Every structure is written in C-alpha cells, then in structure tokens.
C-alpha cells in the first residue's frame, strides 16, 4: 500500500510517498509511521484512505492509498 504525505508532513518525513506492506488496519500503520518518523507524533493531521477522510480506525488492504493531510480548514 502507498502512503502519501502532504504539506508539512512532506518536510517532516522528507518524502512525498512511501510504499509499505502488511498492515491490517490504520492504527497499526499509524504506530509504524510514528516509530519511523517520530516528529509526526504530536502533529495534527487528517487521514484519508482511498480518497475518503476517515475519523476512526479502519481495516486496510494491500492496494489502498493512504494520505496524511494538514488539518482541514474551516472545521
């Protein structure tokens, strides 16, 4: 699966995009990303899975595209 970083998260991670595999759900992936990019901890971001913003943990599949976006303006 592909993880895209936008805005300041691109700077924090030093990349726009990484390929990862084997994650069954979003919380596992987030834990991995926090481990790999500690500066992401404490950041506020929105997460989209396959172009849809998600607000809770969801299951992931191998060809999903996940995006870390800056907080959404105007609520």
């Amino acid at each position: 699966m592909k993880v895209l970083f936008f805005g300041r998260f691109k700077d924090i991670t030093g990349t726009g995009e990484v390929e990862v595999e084997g994650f069954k759900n979003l919380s596992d992936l987030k834990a991995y990303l926090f481990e790999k990019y500690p500066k992401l901890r404490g950041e506020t971001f929105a997460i989209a899975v396959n172009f849809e913003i998600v607000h809770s943990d969801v299951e992931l599949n191998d060809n999903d595209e996940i995006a870390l976006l800056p907080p959404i303006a105007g609520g």
Partner: protein
Amino acid sequence: MDLYDGYNRKVSYLRVSLTDRCNLQCFYCRRDNLVLYEREEILTIEEIKFLISVFYRNFGINKVRFTGGEPLIRRGIESLIEGLRDFNLSVNITTNGILLKEFARFLSENNIGVNVSLDTLIPEKFKKISGGYDLDRIIEGIDTALHLGIKLKINTVLLRSVNDDEIFDLIDFAFSRGVEIRFIEFMPFVNEFIWRKYFISEDEIRDKIEQRHKLYEIGEDSSIARYYTLENGAKIGFISTVSKPFCHNCSRVRITSDGHLVLCMFDKFSYPLKQFLRPKIKENELVEYICSVVKLKPKGYIELREKQASFPMIKLGG
C-alpha cells in the same frame, strides 16, 4: 409537535426572505419583468418575529436563515435578531457582503452565522455579474467578520466562461482565510437559455479541480452539501441542486417577504400567511393551516424540473 411533510420529511429549518430589494443586480438572480412588492404587502418586523416564534414554539424548528433580496438592507433587522435572542435557535444570514463590514460587530455579538456570496475576485467581472462596483467592500467585510470571530462561509455560483477560470483563486482566497467555500450550481431561475449557457455541473467542477489537486471526500453529516478537502487542507463543498439534488432529506420551508409560505423553490404554489396576521392574529388557525399545507410539500426538484419556478431568486434568496 414536530412538523412532517407528506413524504415524512421533518421540517426543522425556516428560511425567511426579509425583503425582495437588493443593492446588487446579479443577472442570475433577477427577471426582467420583475415587479417588486408594495411596502404595505411586506411583513413587518413584528410579524416576521411572530411567524418565527410560531414555528419555534409549535413545531420545534431549530434553524433560521435570513435571506432576501439582501437581508442587511431590511430596516429593523437588528431588532428582529435581538428579538430572537431568547430562542434556542441557530440564526444565520446569507448576504452579498456589501454591508457586512458595517454589521459585523452586531452580527458577531449576536452569534449570527454568515454566508457570503462571492462569485469573483476581479472587479470588472464583479461589475459584469452584479452591476456593482464594491468588490473591495465585500472583501473588507469578510475580513472584518472573520476578525470578529464570526462563523463564515463563502458561497460561489460558478458560471461558464464568466468565472470558471477563477476556481483556484477562489479556493485559495477562502483557504488563506481558513474558511470553507461552497460551489453552488446555477439554478434555472432566470430562463432556460441563460441557464444552459452558463450552467456548470459539480462533476465538471470537480474534474477541473482534480487537474491540479487531489480531492479527498469528507464524510461529513450535512443535509445539502458534499464536502472535500484538498491535499493542503482547503475545505470545499458542493451544493448541487441541479445535478445531484438533495430533496430526499430536505428539511426546509421558506417564507417570502410578503408572507407566503413556499415549500420548495421549484414549486409553483405558495401559501398566504398574512390572512392569519391581519387585521388580527389568529394563531390557532395559522398553526392548523401550516400543518395541513406542509403536507403538500413537493417531493422535490426532480419532480418539478420541467416546470418553470414561479418565484425568481430575488424573492426567495436561494
């Protein structure tokens, strides 16, 4: 008692047109042969307040929006808003922004949500669309309102070959101020020819945006708009009355400034309420009347789209 229409949709949102006058003349809002209401036909501020209180006390509506014409040119709007302070109601206004700067402090103090119609950022285009010269004043009004903490949204009607080249500038304008922008589809209120010439659908706008941005859908609970965020966090919404109508969960009814109840913007019928206000108030009869006519609320735009709407926008305020 809650108010339900004949399709079991709950009516909880009242839109009240305070005047059919406007300080702009946007071509998509008017009709050439427009006859304005005589002064004595227009509901008084006290009558409007009473009608809102009837809907509030009897039917538990929770949201009111003042429209026009331009609601901020209605004399007495301050006392109307002050008169609703004790109600547990979300009170909002849709304005063209010309007078927003002058009213910003009052609106802020009374916790009024403000939607500003803004179709262009280019003065010459603004003149072409609206006949007015005061684009700077609108932008100052928006900035003043935001500075005072007003909850504000921007509404944009995109029109083919008029302002569809400004999509990205308008999105940036809103994003740079931390507010959301909603693209509202141009509705066939003027005439079919003009509508076909200028109409752009949500799908087409989204295609254009996706040429430069990624669009992420925000599954937000809203009865009428679909929301997206761009990869930079800009929030945009679509209100697509024509291509993706939201009739199935419509919760709104409207009152015109001359006191007619309008159940759907595209309905050719309207229901006179003044007969229960003048010469003297008959609240029980009024409540009964509203209960019975609301059952006639049309299923929606899909059913009515072949017919010409009876009210021009200027009398309904969108």
